[in-house]
């Protein structure tokens, strides 16, 4: 296992970049095509659900703050069920990483480098990701810290430059068909990216000052809600409903509208930079999560031995997950169903089982709090079912 540690602030920044990730670019298109000008309301609905999911993850994560979900999954449900849970998480994060790689490859291939083969685009983005993962969680945390201010500065400047092009009238009439279209549009957003936040259950053990996680994580969630809503509102006000729904990378197309006299034109690449920053971080965290899940699933000793093999698996996997763009819309329906198990069902079941077993063993053993070493193996003979003291 990686012995590195990150601070709660680094964790929060990583999660912000993870949640915004690839969703920032493709989200307005998906939402607006279903909900029209009320797409911003879908982001708010999903943001509220996301807060509930984060509460669930925090409750579960803080019961066993020195272990990942794979480790306490085995402790709580036994060897066979625990191994099944480990395999589910390993495959889920592997597929997620492949999806993100494919999204980035598609984006670069369709708008930035149209004549470059898809495989080459994906190899180029995978090289720094593999190197970052090889260097460990501390480097990933510091990368997030360095990249976050740049992404924010570019986002704010872009938003300010777009003010003259905004037409608030595009947002009206509000809710012409009631709130149901907005509720429906929130469905694809639930799977991508809200349920993916379950990756935090693999990262919490690496955080040093865990008592601050809760506060920062909630701030992060609210910040992503605000950013997502702003992105939708700006896109609709600049491009209008029709154009946003027809453009697969609406946020990128919005930046094409930036024109400051004849001094500043073709600023869309600047937006491309933000998007590559957030997507890079998302891919890096997903890749790291996949490697850590596999290491714990198969009791591998050195995680670095799996980093390069996974990069060779990811490339064909990202070509295989989607064979054509027609499947993209179908994946928006199917993916949330798949993500529901690792993102909600398994954590909820583990929390309930943990509560029951913790209570049961608490009655038998008294209230002796356990203290486990960080690098504890899953195969220890004595299961520790008592929750650790929760950081407040």
């Amino acid at each position: 296992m990686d012995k590195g540690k990150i601070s709660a602030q680094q964790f929060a920044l990583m999660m912000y970049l993870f949640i915004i990730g690839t969703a920032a670019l493709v989200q307005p298109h998906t939402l607006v095509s279903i909900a029209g000008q009320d797409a911003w309301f879908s982001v708010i609905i999903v943001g509220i659900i996301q807060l509930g999911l984060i509460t669930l993850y925090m409750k579960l994560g803080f019961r066993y703050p020195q272990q990942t979900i794979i480790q306490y999954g085995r402790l709580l449900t036994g060897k066979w069920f625990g191994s099944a849970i480990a395999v589910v998480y390993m495959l889920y994060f592997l597929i997620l990483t492949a999806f993100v790689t494919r999204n980035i490859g598609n984006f670069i291939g369709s708008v930035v480098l149209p004549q470059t083969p898809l495989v080459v685009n994906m190899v180029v983005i995978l090289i720094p990701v593999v190197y970052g993962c090889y260097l460990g969680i501390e480097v990933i945390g510091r990368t997030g810290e360095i990249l976050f201010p740049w992404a924010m500065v570019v986002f704010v400047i872009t938003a300010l430059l777009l003010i003259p092009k905004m037409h608030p009238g595009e947002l009206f009439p509000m809710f012409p068909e009631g709130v149901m279209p907005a509720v429906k549009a929130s469905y694809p957003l639930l799977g991508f990216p809200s349920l993916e936040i379950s990756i935090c259950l693999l990262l919490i053990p690496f955080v040093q000052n865990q008592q601050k996680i809760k506060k920062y994580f909630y701030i992060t969630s609210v910040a992503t809600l605000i950013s997502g809503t702003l992105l939708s509102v700006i896109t609709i006000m600049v491009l209008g409903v029709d154009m946003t729904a027809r453009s697969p990378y609406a946020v990128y197309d919005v930046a094409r509208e930036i024109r400051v006299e004849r001094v500043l034109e073709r600023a869309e690449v600047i937006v491309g930079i933000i998007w590559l920053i957030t997507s890079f971080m998302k891919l890096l965290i997903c890749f790291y999560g996949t490697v850590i899940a596999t290491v714990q699933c198969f009791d591998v000793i050195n995680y670095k031995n799996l980093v390069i093999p996974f990069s060779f698996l990811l490339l064909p996997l990202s070509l295989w997950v989607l064979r054509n763009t027609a499947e993209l819309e179908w994946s928006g329906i199917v993916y949330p169903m798949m993500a529901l198990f690792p993102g909600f069902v398994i954590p909820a079941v583990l929390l309930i089982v943990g509560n029951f077993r913790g209570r049961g063993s608490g009655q038998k053993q008294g209230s002796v709090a356990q203290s486990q070493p960080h690098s504890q193996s899953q195969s220890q003979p004595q299961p520790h079912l008592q929750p650790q003291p929760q950081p407040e």
Partner: protein
Amino acid sequence: MGPDYIITAVTFMAVILNFIALRRKASKKDLWSSTTILLFGGFLYMMLIMDIPLPSFVSVMGHIFGPLAKPVMNWVTEGKVVHG
């Protein structure tokens, strides 16, 4: 086609080099896990470039969740504002 052959060759070179490198210094679990992942990646890539009719992940999931996914698809797209 060029990059495909290069990547396939690199993948199988990686399998061999990885095996040689890890055989001496890593545990057996590490060695076999990494070799299996590499081989799986290599064969999947070969199947893709040889156009073997492999259903994509999304279509596999579509079959698994089909009975549930179709009504959801109808519900979500019903009254869709813009058909982009």
